[in-house]
């Protein structure tokens, strides 16, 4: 029989939950991570299909800095989790692009290159852009008490060319924005630094390598991870979570509960919650993703960009589409085009576009499968404006939708960046329940790990 009481119970074995578990168990707390799925990773998990291995969310890890770079989030994570750069095995990107009609902004992991690119393409905006960069550099985006500001409004105080504004917002929104149209300025700064000032990288083995490193560490410091172990409810009494009830009927207790399930999702587990009131707080931004396994790498077809963030319309629209998919903008990722020491086993190309959860969820079989078949050529039509025609080289295709994301992660509406309102301190209405992960407010793989670390430090270790 496993024990029934822990110092800390953590809901969800994603990046934030595993990172929190490492911190807490390392400092001698008894910790149990509960995961409903049979695979760890949450929104950054992996799966096998048709004899191939796929990553769920990982195109690239943001925040890459070379080993030993001082003060950077990635360095903090290695330190705080007592890991080394070898544990993650990150290879930097080659070069990426933001492509709009008739114009392109290239970037790599050297920020100066991007600055020069902006100055060259938008010479009239030079001074404005440099002032914006200084403002971003000086902004403390990790201040947990900062009040939310409109990113669009702040950026408009510096940049006067709407095309440049859209070209900067496009990758930052697609890679980490939970709200439609606008983006909170602190979040904008986090994403700007993580993508442009720092950079992109990927382990050759994909996200598995990172999850394996985290799980090995949790085990090594004495933490417990229980898989296929979903939480049915959090029994609330006297302003505290008194007990954690599992799907199996088993009951566990803990002094402190961390939940990475999402804010709305966690509140709905609480026996004192009013589910109706929570609906307006739900996140809605979700995506479809098409992954083609290719018989040769895109580089052999003459395409060496790592990632292309594209937009084909006059303006960039970041909103839940009215239709099933909005293929007018999106991401084209070639996992081969990182600077690996040897090529990855299976060449692929990944295509990502905004999608409507409601529309996909409303489809019954076989209409759901048919909708994928209908949308595939429409997505191809847009992305083939930016990459050589790879279709004859596709050996296997997977197509996942917001419904797939909801099914495997439990996140309402398949919202990959959680709810628009973030709880920076992680505090909830219950004394011993804290939110970590997406809805605490640090996004992406590095953000999620930092979230787990900071919540563990703030609410348990500093006490």
């Amino acid at each position, binding site marked *: 029989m496993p024990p029934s009481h822990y110092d800390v119970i953590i809901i969800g074995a994603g990046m934030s939950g595993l990172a929190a578990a490492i911190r807490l168990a*390392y*400092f*001698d707390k008894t910790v149990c991570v509960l995961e409903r799925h049979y695979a760890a990773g949450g929104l950054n998990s992996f799966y096998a299909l048709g004899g191939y291995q796929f990553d769920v969310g990982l195109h690239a890890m943001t925040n890459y800095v070379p*080993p*030993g770079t*001082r*003060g950077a989030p990635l*360095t*903090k994570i*290695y*330190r*705080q989790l*007592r890991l*080394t750069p070898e544990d993650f095995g990150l290879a930097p990107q080659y070069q990426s692009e933001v492509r709009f009609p008739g114009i392109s902004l290239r970037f790599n992991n050297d920020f100066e290159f991007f600055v020069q690119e902006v100055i060259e393409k938008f010479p009239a905006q030079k001074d404005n852009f440099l002032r914006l960069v200084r403002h971003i550099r000086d902004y403390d985006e990790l201040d947990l008490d900062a009040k939310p500001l409109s990113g669009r409004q702040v950026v408009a105080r510096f940049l006067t060319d709407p095309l440049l504004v859209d070209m900067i917002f496009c990758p930052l929104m697609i890679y980490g924005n939970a709200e439609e149209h606008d983006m909170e300025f602190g979040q904008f700064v986090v994403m700007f630094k993580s993508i442009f000032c720092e950079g992109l990288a990927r382990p050759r083995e994909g996200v598995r390598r990172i999850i394996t490193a985290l799980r090995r560490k949790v085990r090594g410091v004495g933490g417990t991870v229980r898989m296929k172990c979903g939480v049915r409810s959090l029994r609330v009494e006297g302003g505290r979570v008194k007990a954690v009830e599992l799907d199996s009927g088993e009951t566990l207790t803990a002094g402190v509960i961390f939940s990475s399930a999402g804010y709305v999702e966690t509140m709905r587990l609480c026996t004192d919650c009013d589910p109706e009131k929570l609906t307006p707080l739900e996140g809605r931004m979700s995506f479809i993703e098409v992954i083609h396994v290719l018989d040769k790498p895109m580089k052999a077809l003459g395409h060496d960009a790592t990632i292309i963030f594209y937009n084909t319309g006059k303006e960039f629209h970041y909103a839940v589409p009215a239709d099933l998919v909005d293929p007018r903008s999106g991401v084209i990722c070639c996992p081969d085009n990182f600077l690996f020491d040897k090529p990855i086993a299976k060449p692929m190309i990944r295509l990502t576009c905004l999608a409507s959860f409601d529309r996909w969820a409303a489809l019954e079989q076989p209409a759901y499968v048919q909708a994928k078949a209908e949308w595939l050529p429409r997505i191809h039509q847009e992305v083939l404006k930016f990459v050589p025609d790879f279709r004859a080289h596709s050996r296997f295709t997977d197509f996942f939708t917001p419904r797939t994301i909801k099914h495997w992660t439990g996140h309402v509406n398949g919202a990959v960046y959680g709810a628009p309102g973030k709880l920076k301190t992680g505090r909830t209405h219950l004394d011993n329940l804290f939110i970590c992960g997406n809805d605490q407010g640090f996004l992406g793989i590095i953000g999620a790990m930092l979230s787990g*670390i900071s919540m563990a*430090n703030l609410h348990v*270790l*500093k006490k």
Partner: protein
Amino acid sequence: MTNDQINQAILQIISVIAPDEDLSHLKSDVALREQLELDSMDFLDIVMELRKRYKVEVPEADYGHLASLDSCVAYLAPKLKDL
């Protein structure tokens, strides 16, 4: 523990927290923060490691005593004298 042992213990802890730092030229009378890239998360970890390894409690009000190697030793010597 002797003062020398405490000094070694602190260096050992810093090398675990910040394995990417070179500790061979540390001056014992100069603030650690001036010589190493240590942020508030790292200082919390020095406190946590002291608790984990030696069962010593350092209240938040006393964090200032951990500024340099010398001040660490002076502050910790009475707490660790029986170890």
